[in-house]
């Protein structure tokens, strides 16, 4: 192994050092028949029947290593999940790296192994990649960009256009685990049970869709958490989203962390959860299907979509007393406060 402890500018220059990086580090882990050719583009077999779905994403989270995952694992899960919530079965990913000169090779290796593990769990393949190195100070250790290609099977039509008043909103598990874990890492707090929920959801969603429940729309509540997702769905559908405070699944550690920093669990990002809008009467069937899957054990109903009302906020929380509390888009999301 000739790789040094740290990435050098030369590793991105395209010459011998780049080849070393690819052949000694990247290729052995990512190997498949498409990547191994190392040609300019991956030429793939014809897609299965259905409509192609395409997504792209950038991953810059700080810190790049956290309890429950790493930037590499996250990058693959995030891409797979974007495709999955669109109703697509994910197939192939691209994986593009921008490395900062001086990045520890061991960190890169950990993220690479994370990406490989996620791809294996999701049953997807990374078929194309790229590596660039920028001078020290011009990039925060590493940035990962992906593109993902999947196929929406014929006859499947998911999306907010199908959401109706009366639809129940489900969460596949406790909210905010990822965001709370990241915030704890950033602020020098630890918790044995604080762990990112980062996971590929395509298997769970396939199980849900196979159950026969009439699912209308799916979203993964990443940036801004369930709060932002509900606002987006509300804006697109013109309906109100009302969440039930007593039903919101939040783990004790996440609730504690949020209390300490003045944040709201409902606004914290998740990277391994889906929110589901579905026909009310099919909720029990859907929950059963989700709970039968390892990633869906904590699935439950968290609220419903309602007809709009001029005197009520677009997104609200119903409190234990039965009153509604408006949930503002900016409520308690990102900046720790003392007031």
């Amino acid at each position: 192994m000739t790789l040094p402890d740290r990435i050098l500018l030369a590793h991105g220059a395209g010459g011998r050092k780049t080849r070393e990086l690819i052949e000694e580090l990247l290729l052995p882990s990512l190997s498949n028949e498409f990547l191994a050719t190392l040609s300019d583009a991956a030429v793939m077999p014809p897609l299965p029947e259905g409509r192609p779905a395409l997504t792209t994403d950038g991953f810059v989270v700080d810190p790049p290593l956290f309890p429950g995952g790493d930037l590499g694992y996250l990058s693959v899960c995030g891409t797979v999940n974007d495709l999955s919530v669109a109703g697509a079965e994910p197939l192939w990913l691209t994986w593009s790296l921008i490395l900062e000169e001086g990045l520890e090779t061991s960190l890169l290796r950990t993220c690479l192994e994370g990406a490989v593990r996620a791809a294996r769990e999701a049953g997807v393949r990374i078929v194309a990649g790229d590596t660039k190195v920028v001078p020290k100070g011009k990039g925060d250790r590493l940035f990962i960009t992906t593109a993902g290609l999947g196929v929406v099977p014929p006859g499947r039509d998911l999306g907010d256009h199908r959401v109706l008043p009366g639809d129940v909103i489900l969460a596949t598990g406790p909210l905010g685990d990822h965001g709370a874990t990241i915030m704890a890492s950033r602020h020098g707090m630890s918790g044995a049970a604080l762990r990112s929920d980062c996971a590929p959801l395509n298997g769970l969603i396939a199980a849900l869709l196979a159950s026969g429940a009439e699912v209308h729309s799916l979203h993964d509540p990443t940036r801004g958490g369930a709060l932002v997702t509900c606002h987006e769905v509300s804006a697109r559908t013109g309906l109100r989203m009302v969440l039930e405070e007593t039903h919101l699944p939040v783990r004790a550690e996440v609730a504690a962390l949020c209390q300490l920093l003045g944040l709201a669990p409902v606004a914290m990002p998740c990277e391994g959860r889906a929110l589901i809008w579905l026909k009310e009467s099919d909720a029990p069937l859907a929950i059963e299907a989700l709970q039968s899957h390892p990633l869906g054990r904590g699935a439950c109903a968290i609220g419903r979509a309602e007809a709009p009302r001029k005197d009520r906020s677009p997104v609200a929380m119903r409190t234990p007393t039965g009153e509604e509390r408006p949930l503002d888009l900016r409520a308690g999301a990102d900046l720790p406060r003392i007031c």
Partner: protein
Amino acid sequence: MIAQEPFRDPRLLDALFAAIRSEAALLGRRSSFMEVCGTHTHAIAEAGLRRRLAPQVRLISGPGCPVCVTPVEYLDRAIALGRLPGVRLATFGDLFRVPSSRGSLETAAAEGLRVEVVYSPRDALALASAHPEERVVFLAVGFETTAPAIAATLAEADRLGMRNFYVLSGHKVVPPPLRLLASDPGLALDGLLLPGHVSVLTGWGIFEFLATEFGLPSAVVGFTPADILLGVLELVRQRRKGEARVTNLYGRAVRREENAEARRLMGRYFTPVDSEWRGMGVIPESGLALRPEWAERDAGLWPVTVPEPMEPAGCRCGEVLKGAISPPECPLFAAACDPDSPVGACMVSSEGTCAAWYRHERYRGEAAP
């Protein structure tokens, strides 16, 4: 574990509302009580207490949000300091999006200003340690709950021999504006809910003048809905009986006496000065400045050009902060001014009166006070 749930139990809250209703009915006239703590403002708005107490009890928000009462000049100076070469600012999150005369710390950061949001002044000390070639300036705002923390951090900086840590003090203290508000005939206050966590540091004894000099029923309360309602019940009862006392209803955290170590540190590092409160003008002895012997830590003494402060046109934060008007009575409220594009501090600070109203009470059709 100290149980938190009883303090939010709907059954217990209902009982409190019922008790308040009975007492208020016996009293026979409306009561106006002011709270002077941003965290109380937020808690009241979030739990929807204002609407359920109306019309018998009217809750007014006073100047309880330290970010909101900090004049625009403080932020202008902070940004000017941050633009000096080799300076890195450290700030509480509360201040990050507050508008100065031109932009906020957030917009200035996008233009290259080095500023970090920290949870504790000790994090700023860690920054100074990590960047020995920089001058780290901590933007010290807050009341008596927070000022001791900055004093203790200065003590730690001294102990560690850390030379590159500085403070721009915007600290204020609570009793002087209360004196002004208590004597304002236009406000016609019937009682005060007093800040629970300020009282943890100062002791509740410092508020006795409200009862003895101004005959105002007052209650020191905690921050759960039950705590606040216990306070309202106490104030209505005192009024009904024609009494005026300062009652400590946050006994689990507050004593009559101050936190002695906090007082010692405060006395070592800070001295009272006259200071300007947005909307209330200069109030004597209401601010805290670094004592002259700590001049080398005082970023407020650095020569820096601060542009002429500009209060945003039409902004009525000042009157909102005094409790003279409620947020919807400001023409900018929910129109030109909202949390996404705030005009004044009351809207951007999460504890600001306008932000609390916008987030929680705008939809309830709050009865105009």
